[in-house]
């Protein structure tokens, strides 16, 4: 079977769950081969969990400057690995970084790029959700190497322990005129909450939350349900909540089991980021608000009355067990 290259998402110590999802999907197309890009020693630390999830080879692309430059080291590593093993496909996580790496690789190799995939079958046909969830498209690469970016959370990762061989990829020195250097980093402050795009429950607040203080009730409900917090663009623009939590057309696309919209009107651009959620609950005091028409459970009422009661009720049920 041909190799299928998987770019490993990691923080230097741990492999990100989305990588295990990629390895699981990669098995449908060939032998999963992991590509680890990092500072020296990283691949050795990550090898065991990668092998446990089915990586038959771990390609180590290591250099001291690997985490100092944006995207370029990952693109070069994948390009080297492609030339070495002639894979059937390359899979990356459809994160902001992953999409950019996938695109650059496809551009360099004249390959076929499929982004925002939510599934890939054994013939290489990818299912994509486009136009904010208004279409489901199935597409395949007809020319060149398939480079596919798969949305995190698209499948359940499966363990499949194998012996992983290790190979080194010699990264060339980074061309400083062609790469942006990362001079400082500030990690996202998600706290104990799950990542927005991967959470099974998302509680979002809109302009109706009426202030940064008002978002406390949104956070409390999210915490009661073990969910992530989201926000509408109007709430972000008003400074109630940080931009990285924006859900919608120009924010994140989420598809949780449960989406709760508090004080959000339901503009088409907001719906574009959440209408593929399994169950939608909306609380809005305006009976005409469009969000109520797409909700599985719509409450016409004041969010500051409904949400605190809901938090209480959840706590009571939890205790009753």
């Amino acid at each position: 079977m041909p190799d299928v290259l998987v770019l490993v998402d990691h923080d230097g110590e741990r492999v990100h769950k989305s990588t295990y999802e990629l390895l699981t999907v990669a098995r449908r197309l060939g032998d999963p081969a992991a590509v680890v890009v990092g500072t020296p020693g990283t691949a050795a630390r990550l090898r065991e969990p990668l092998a446990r999830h089915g990586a038959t080879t771990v390609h180590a692309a290591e250099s001291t400057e690997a985490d100092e430059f944006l995207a370029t080291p990952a693109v070069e590593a994948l390009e080297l690995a492609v030339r070495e093993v002639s894979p059937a496909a390359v899979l990356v996580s459809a994160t902001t970084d992953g999409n950019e790496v996938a695109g650059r690789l496809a551009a360099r190799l004249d390959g076929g790029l499929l982004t925002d995939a939510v599934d890939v079958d054994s013939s290489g046909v990818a299912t994509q959700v486009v136009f904010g969830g208004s279409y489901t498209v199935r597409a395949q690469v007809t020319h060149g190497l398939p480079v596919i970016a798969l949305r995190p959370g698209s499948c359940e990762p499966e363990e499949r322990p194998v012996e992983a061989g290790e190979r080194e990829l010699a990264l060339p020195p980074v061309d400083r005129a062609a790469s942006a250097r990362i001079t400082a980093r500030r990690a996202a402050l998600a706290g104990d909450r799950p990542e927005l795009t991967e959470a099974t429950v998302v509680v979002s607040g809109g302009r109706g939350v009426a202030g940064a203080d008002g978002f406390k009730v949104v956070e409390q409900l999210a915490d009661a349900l073990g969910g992530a917090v989201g926000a509408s663009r109007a709430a972000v623009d008003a400074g109630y909540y940080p931009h990285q939590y924006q859900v919608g057309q120009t924010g994140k696309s989420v598809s949780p089991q449960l989406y709760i919209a508090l004080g959000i009107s339901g503009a088409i651009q907001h719906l574009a980021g959440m209408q593929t959620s399994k169950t939608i609950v909306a609380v809005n005091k305006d009976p005409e608000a469009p969000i109520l028409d797409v909700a599985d459970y719509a409450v016409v009422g004041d969010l500051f009355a409904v949400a605190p009661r809901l938090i209480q009720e959840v706590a009571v049920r939890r205790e009753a067990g």
Partner: protein
Amino acid sequence: MHIVVLVKQVPDTAAERTLSEADHTLDRETADLVLDEINERATEEALTLKEAVGAEVTVVSMGPGTAIDAIRKVLAMGADRGLHICDDRLHGADAVTTAKTLAAAVRRLEDVDLVLAGNTTTDGQAGAVPAMVADLLGLPQLTHARELTVDAGRVRAERETENGEATLDAPLPALVSVTEKINEPRYPSFKGIMAAKKKPVETVDLDDLFPGVDDTGFLATRTHVVDAVPRPARAAGIRITDDGSAGRQLVGYLIAQKLV
């Protein structure tokens, strides 16, 4: 300084967007086409630099005949001249072809110091195109910037993604894509709109951008859509009006759905 702004005309997100039955590409006949809002912010950034340090601003757009409206809007905001890449063979172009074509257009312009773009279009492609154009041009990518400074031949940007924030630094020439947090774009003035009508716009096709490429083998896309199915509209479900018991009723519903 010479700044190039890459812009795209897209279907208005406020309206319904459909894919054509024939080839699964965007149905432009039925769509209300507008300059993608994020491009106004990229333009605003270019114009701010123009006012601060002096610059020539060229707007580049790839698209059918109607894309001229998007170019004129950017000219009305204050850009100096336009380049319109218009060729029927680009219909249904994939991200790779789009990036190659845009890169070829930038190469054709002289002494470009900075390429600006929106971080992601509202009609697809997952925000990869700016990074791809940068790669093809051999420029550093400073993408998803919510803050930008250009000084002494270097560019610095604050990148914001789901991973958090990063400060990026690179020498010029470079490519920067901006997020919707970067600024509030200006409205074109009446004077600007009048002036835009007289600003030069060059139209080029693939033969101009890729001289010598044989026209039989032009590859617009490397992917094929097997099928495209509109997702069924969501139907309204249960609706209650809060009389003080909504919290309790709602938790009952969530338990019944096994969501709590």
